[in-house]
């Protein structure tokens, strides 16, 4: 693991008050009380239901800012939740998933996600988090990842415009690729309901259709017992190949490299896992 100089970036857009109230909320809406209350339950879920296996977590720096880059899949953002609790247990770090607008803007789900530490994905929010020395988790596929159907599972979608690499270059932050398998099988997306959009919350582009939802009503939102595999890759220092954040070609090239590595890891993990449910 390469050493990373944390003091080189002044932290423009630095924090306001870290924790300014005795309730301990952070400005992004994370509630330590909710995190503590949910932790044992999530750990049980990870052990008994998802049977999560994590490999290579020692590459994650124990402290200081870092960006985790993961693939994304499933009708619901279970991968953010699983990664959050798996990393917390394996390394003790509470990571901050950066999630898409429809997730953070969804009623109940969005509120719960932010109480647990999720943040709306934006350069501004990410910069503030990194300035606080937090570990951010990004899903460069974005909605494309969540919106891919069962037939395209384990196929990484395009990596947007490389915003996460630009962020890493600007804030001088290491990128750690994290391959995840299990999201698609936990909440398989078999269809997207886009008609009657007026009935959906105005931030949601579609209502996901899974084998159990909306067939079984709210119960259908419960996760299927898929087996999860998580693999951390070697950290990447973006400044080795990229001069500055204006270097768009090099930025896209690095994004593509990371995507290829993740795709390769995902295939290996799927193969090694064997049956998805049994």
């Amino acid at each position, binding site marked *: 693991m390469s050493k990373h100089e944390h003091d080189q970036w002044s932290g423009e857009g630095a924090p306001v008050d870290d924790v300014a109230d005795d309730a301990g909320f952070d400005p*992004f809406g994370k509630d330590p009380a909710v995190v503590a209350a949910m932790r044992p339950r999530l750990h049980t879920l990870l052990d008994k239901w998802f049977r999560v296996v994590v490999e290579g977590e020692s590459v994650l720096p124990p402290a200081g800012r870092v960006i985790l880059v993961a693939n994304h899949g499933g009708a619901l953002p279970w991968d953010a939740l699983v990664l959050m609790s798996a990393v917390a247990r394996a390394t003790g770090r509470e990571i901050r998933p950066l999630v898409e607008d429809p997730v953070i803007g969804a009623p109940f789900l969005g509120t719960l996600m932010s109480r647990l530490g999720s943040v709306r994905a934006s350069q501004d929010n990410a910069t503030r988090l990194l300035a606080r020395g937090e570990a951010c988790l990004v899903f460069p596929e974005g909605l494309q990842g969540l919106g891919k159907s069962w037939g395209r599972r384990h196929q990484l979608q395009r990596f947007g415009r490389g915003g996460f690499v630009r962020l890493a270059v600007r804030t001088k932050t290491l990128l750690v690729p994290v391959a995840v398998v299990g999201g698609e099988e936990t909440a398989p997306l078999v269809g997207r309901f886009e008609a009657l959009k007026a009935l959906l919350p105005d931030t949601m582009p579609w209502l996901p259709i899974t084998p159990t939802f909306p067939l079984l009503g709210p119960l259908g939102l419960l996760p299927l017992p898929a087996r999860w595999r998580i693999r951390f890759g070697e950290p990447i220092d973006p400044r080795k190949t990229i001069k500055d954040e204006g270097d768009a070609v090099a930025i896209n090239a690095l994004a593509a490299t990371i995507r290829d590595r993740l795709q390769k890891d995902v295939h290996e993990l799927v193969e090694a896992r064997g049956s998805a449910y049994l």
Partner: protein
Amino acid sequence: MATKKTTTAKPATKQTTTAKKKKATATTDDVDVDVVEHRSSKRVGSDRVVAVIGAFGFLGRRVLARLEEDNEVDRIVAVDVRSGISSLDDGEDDDHRAVLLRHPKLSAHTLDLTTPGADRELADILRTEDAGALFHLAFLSTPTHHQEMAHELETIGTHYVLNAAREAGITRLVSLSSTMCYGARPDNPAFLNEDHPLRPPPSRTLKDKADADEQVRRFAAEHKDIAVSIARLGAMVPTAKDHFWTRIFSRRLVPAVLGYDPMMQFLHPDDAVEALLGLWRARARGHVNVVGRGYLPLSHVLTRLERAPLYLPAAIGSSIIGTLWQAQLIDMPQHFFGFLRWPWLADDKRLKAITGFSPRHDLSTVLTVLAASRTAKEQP
């Protein structure tokens, strides 16, 4: 920044013509020369005379009291639509003389900013009083059903105030705005800073405030010789009981959005006043967010205030609120619903950087004070 004190007030008519000529010859690409010219030719009000427009309002009265204590201030010019000293009587003194004794520097003028020609009248007042600094606090503190009046006061009134400030040789101007002008939006960053565009919801109340904010910004850009700052105040409690947030939280049931729970900030009025004075002292320029210390989700705020949330589904909540508002059954207009749903925390780093001041009251204190003030009211 013109700091020198020019005391002799030229006759009104002559001043007007000079100012007009000045404007015609002024070139925007040579600002420095322009500033020097202004200093040498234009009459400048005294730094030790401070005018407050909207002086007898909730904030204005507190600003007046603090200016009375300030050794840098010789005279205070209070301008308000409410007449005279009786507005300053907060009920503690039956005798107006006692009020006058507490305000030895004060000279009060009655002026209605919604009447045509208010700019000329105000300019005359400022010039006669030789005012060099100006607090523009004549804004409504709550949305109103009298939208025409609100529009006249906030946008046209601000236009008049700016005209008068230019005419009368004001060198420092502190104006009010609101962080609600940013709008609460799903795509807002966790903290809004001053560079964030104003995207108020389609509410006339907030559009008027945002318009005033923009007018003052343009005025500042055109008049580099005047130190113009715009204080964007966050939600303020506890205030007078008719102010928006105080009133919302005075009800047993507070509207909330089902499934949403945005982080909230609340500013104590004392901190707001200190910030305004800080901006004036520092001759600050530009927009400055003024918000309280700390943040909590709305649900926790309601719990601490012992208020029950009235949960409305997001899809129809705003229409319900809108209908109730039209029927005058609720204190919240339709488009304020978003402020209970989406994030709109503001960052006040800039205030600290410019004035060195940061709010003293944290959120817990503010909520305790609000709860206490309410209980005191409910008991008798």
